[in-house]
């Protein structure tokens, strides 16, 4: 089974790495990274801008690209399924065959200008690695979402709409709701709620993983035992890391189940 998945991944990657979109994405990431570094020349400023690319733009790109990719390849997917191939095998092959090129274009695109200017980042390598890990997991998660959307819904335009909504929800609206909730409940002990809500959103999790490194001085400026335990020790990093990794399986597993049962 793994061998069959690997075969499909091989051809999917072969296809995707030649796709003008993936190449364009790589160029975009490297241009953005290069421009940020040479324009500001300050590692913390670069990292903060990269954070926004990583947790805001990157998910949008992945979810839209993934959705369009799945719809556009529908006939091919059907053809593949008339061969003696399991659905889960094909689905995994398609998924990894897409996220690997996406990940490569992200990592190399962002990373190449960083490596060239590595001495600028020597003190912030831990933040940088948290950032890149976050970015990669966002790719997994939001590509997973896009496949899920394509699996539950036949209409391409509607699928695109849902994609953008999901991005908007996790990227912006969710935080707005948290703020609203925390403001309403501000007279109660709400640290646990605040942290719990954050753990339920992959974008927030990715952000936490980065700011836990970057803004630790501010986060430790809040004297609450829950926060102190979470952010002060490696507990927070560990939990965020774990949750984010769990998050990676959720959309993938959901869409795998959905796709396996679906009438094509």
């Amino acid at each position, binding site marked *: 089974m793994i061998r069959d998945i690997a075969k499909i991944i091989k051809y*999917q990657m*072969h*296809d995707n790495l030649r796709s003008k979109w993936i190449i364009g994405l790589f160029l975009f990431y490297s241009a953005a990274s290069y421009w940020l570094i040479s324009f500001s020349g300050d590692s913390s400023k670069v990292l903060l801008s990269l954070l926004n690319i990583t947790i805001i733009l990157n998910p949008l790109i992945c979810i839209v690209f993934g959705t369009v990719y799945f719809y556009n390849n529908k*006939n091919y997917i059907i053809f593949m399924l*008339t*061969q*003696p191939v399991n*659905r889960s095998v094909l689905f995994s092959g398609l998924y990894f065959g897409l996220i690997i090129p996406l990940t490569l274009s992200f990592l190399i695109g962002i990373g190449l200008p960083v490596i060239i200017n590595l001495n600028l980042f020597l003190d912030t390598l831990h933040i940088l690695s948290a950032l890149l890990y976050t970015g990669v997991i966002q790719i997994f998660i939001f590509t997973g979402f896009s496949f899920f959307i394509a699996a539950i819904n036949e209409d391409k335009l509607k699928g695109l709409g849902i994609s953008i909504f999901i991005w908007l929800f996790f990227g912006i609206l969710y935080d707005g709701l948290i703020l609203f909730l925390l403001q309403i409940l501000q007279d109660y002990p709400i640290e646990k709620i605040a942290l719990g809500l954050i753990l339920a959103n992959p974008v927030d999790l990715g952000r936490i993983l980065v700011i836990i490194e970057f803004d630790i001085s501010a986060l430790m400026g809040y004297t609450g035992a829950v926060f102190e335990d979470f952010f002060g020790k490696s507990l927070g990093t560990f939990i965020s890391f774990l949750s984010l990794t769990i998050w990676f399986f959720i959309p993938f597993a959901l869409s795998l189940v959905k796709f396996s*049962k679906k009438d*094509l």
Partner: protein
Amino acid sequence: MITISQLHKSYDLLNVLKGIDLKIPEGKITYIVGPNGSGKTTLIKILLGLVKNYSGRIYVNGNEIDGESSYRSQIGYMPQHASFPENLTVKHVFELVKELRNRYEDLDEELIAKFYLSKEMNKRVKTLSGGTLQKVSAALAFLFKPSILILDEPTAGLDPVSSSILKDKIKTENNAGKTILFTSHIVSELEDLAENIIFLLDGNIYFNGSLDNLIVHTGEHNLERSIASVMLRRL
């Protein structure tokens, strides 16, 4: 040999197949025909495992289809509109399917030769014409010498020369004992190949028998008129 018993399929409230019992005999060419919405596409998709949520039982060469994919190694399928990853070359597509089927020898490459596909091998899929894609698709369907061939509007989009090459191929394979199933919602130029005809109408089998019997049954003098008269009488 394909055996189908009590096959029901509905999409939401729409009953597409209403309890079909069918035997598609081995070594014969069977022509599935019916108007749009009669259920023939759904029937083919169920045979290929693309549609999974149905009730009833289906046996392919004696084994029941139960979600496993291995039975499809006995089937060659040629879709109406072929589609492959556009940045792969034709050669890659052939290699991909070979790898999926895990079969690199004992191949039937007759169509690759006859369609002159060797000169297309290094072209990327996105640069191919619709006709060439159909040729690739046809060549893939026969490549692994499957015992059952399912061809969906196989000659649509092919030029007359290629079309007759394909027709000859179908005849040869049939003579070699292959079961061949093709569909069309119009009467195609392949009708003269068919020995059996299955007429689907509103999710039921209206007629299942030899071509001659249908013509006798309807009292017309050829297939096209027979079919037309069936449709008209029913509508």
